């Protein structure tokens, strides 16, 4: 069933203003169509019957905010989601990264970590893991706790295993986790090179330089103005000849920074080309 339409357009704006002024999270440049659905969905889940009720809870219960941020952002992800993208990384990009003494990869908006773990597996299989560091960031502290635990629902493993094989994986996917009742705990070694921390693409700045930035299905939730800011942040955080990987239907084509990037693969991977 579809979410109800409880919240009016102008009420969305009040809510965004409250959350920013009270807690510092700035959602003002999130795409409204999706954001409004998320807020209506929260009303459905939490059984708020009016905007006033939701607003009252947000203003008066600071501990509720964590849950609000978690639900208002989309945390749907998979291991090896779009297997052909991961095949592209495996076959075309990792061999090029292999020439660096230290490989730094940023998974921006990593949510519960499934893509970061997928990349760790790719690096292992390419014998590059020992000289790699994967930085996984998200604005949302609670999803990072899930990423840190490395425990995912067992029922997902069938899909992940199929994705893994389609991505060109040759091993038995179940070698990477230990099944326990309804959960799968991923091998500790996949966390050794994984650094998880909070980072908000809306407000935080560049914190390192990378040879690969992976940011998939995050920019779709931002308006073009915010997308432009994030592309600038990525441009500042990428070494020359570094790679930027976006979601299957995301593009840098509409950005001014398009000229600094050359698309290298039909799976939405771009290479940074310094014109200086």
């Amino acid at each position, binding site marked *: *069933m*579809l979410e109800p*339409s409880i919240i009016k357009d102008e009420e969305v704006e009040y809510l965004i203003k409250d959350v920013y002024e009270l807690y510092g999270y700035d959602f003002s440049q999130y795409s409204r169509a*999706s954001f409004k*659905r998320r807020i209506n969905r929260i009303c459905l889940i939490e059984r708020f019957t009016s905007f006033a009720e939701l607003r009252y809870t947000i203003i008066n219960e600071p501990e509720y905010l964590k849950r609000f941020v978690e639900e208002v952002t989309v945390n*749907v992800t998979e291991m090896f989601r779009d297997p*052909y993208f991961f095949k592209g990384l495996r076959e075309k990009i990792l061999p090029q990264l292999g020439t660096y003494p230290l490989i730094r990869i940023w998974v921006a908006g990593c949510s519960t970590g499934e893509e970061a773990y997928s990349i760790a597996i790719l690096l292992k299989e390419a014998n590059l893991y020992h000289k790699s560091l994967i930085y996984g960031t998200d604005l949302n502290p609670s999803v990072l706790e899930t990423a840190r635990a490395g425990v995912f629902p067992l029922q997902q493993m069938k899909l992940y295993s199929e994705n893994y094989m389609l991505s060109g994986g040759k091993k038995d996917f179940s070698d990477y986790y230990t099944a326990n009742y309804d959960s799968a705990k991923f091998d500790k070694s996949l966390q050794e090179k994984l650094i998880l921390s909070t980072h908000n693409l809306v407000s935080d700045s560049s914190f390192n330089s990378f040879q690969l930035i992976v940011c998939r299905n995050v920019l779709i939730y931002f308006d073009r103005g915010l*997308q432009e800011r994030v592309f600038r942040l990525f441009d500042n955080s990428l070494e020359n000849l570094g790679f930027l990987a976006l979601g299957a239907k995301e593009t840098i*084509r509409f950005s001014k920074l398009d000229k600094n990037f050359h698309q290298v693969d039909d799976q939405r991977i771009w290479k940074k080309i310094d014109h200086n």
Partner: protein
Amino acid sequence: MHTESTNTELVLIGGSAGSLQVILEMIKNISEKLNFPIILVLHRKAHSTNILQTLLQQFISTEVVEIDDKTDIRKNKIYIVPADYHLLFENKKTMSLDSSEKMNYSRPSIDVTFKSAAEVYGKTLVGILLSGANADGVEGLAYIKKNNGKVWIQDPETAEVDYMPKHAVEEVKYDLLIKPDNLADYINQL
């Protein structure tokens, strides 16, 4: 049929199992000078490539586009919602993609796109639901009707899989029942 004349700004077509043949039949006979865009929301496998775009483009000179995030909406183009994303409308100019939870076991969900379009386009929207094996789209059609848009449903008698249009006919006040061989004509007359 009693209708006031309203400029159509968007035609949205939703379909699932059995709808591809209807779409192909329509594409072959559709005018190449439409004053509005047509957007297709079809249930597909998650990893399907742009094969549908290539297939449809063979039959028509009007440009067929698989939608990227923040794509501008232009008249006289045919847009396809990509596999594994929901399509939403920011306004009458811009479309956004969304990869949130599936709705009715579907992503794209016809309901999600129909509802979003109903709120943005109101009475200038025509929503069409074709053959299919699940109820996705029925609730969305009701939203389109509620916002004074036009609702067309494939005559269940002509549907390869009649579950979806049958439910729609039972539950939504519709303006027109269409058949595979007259859908293009009706669209051309808008």
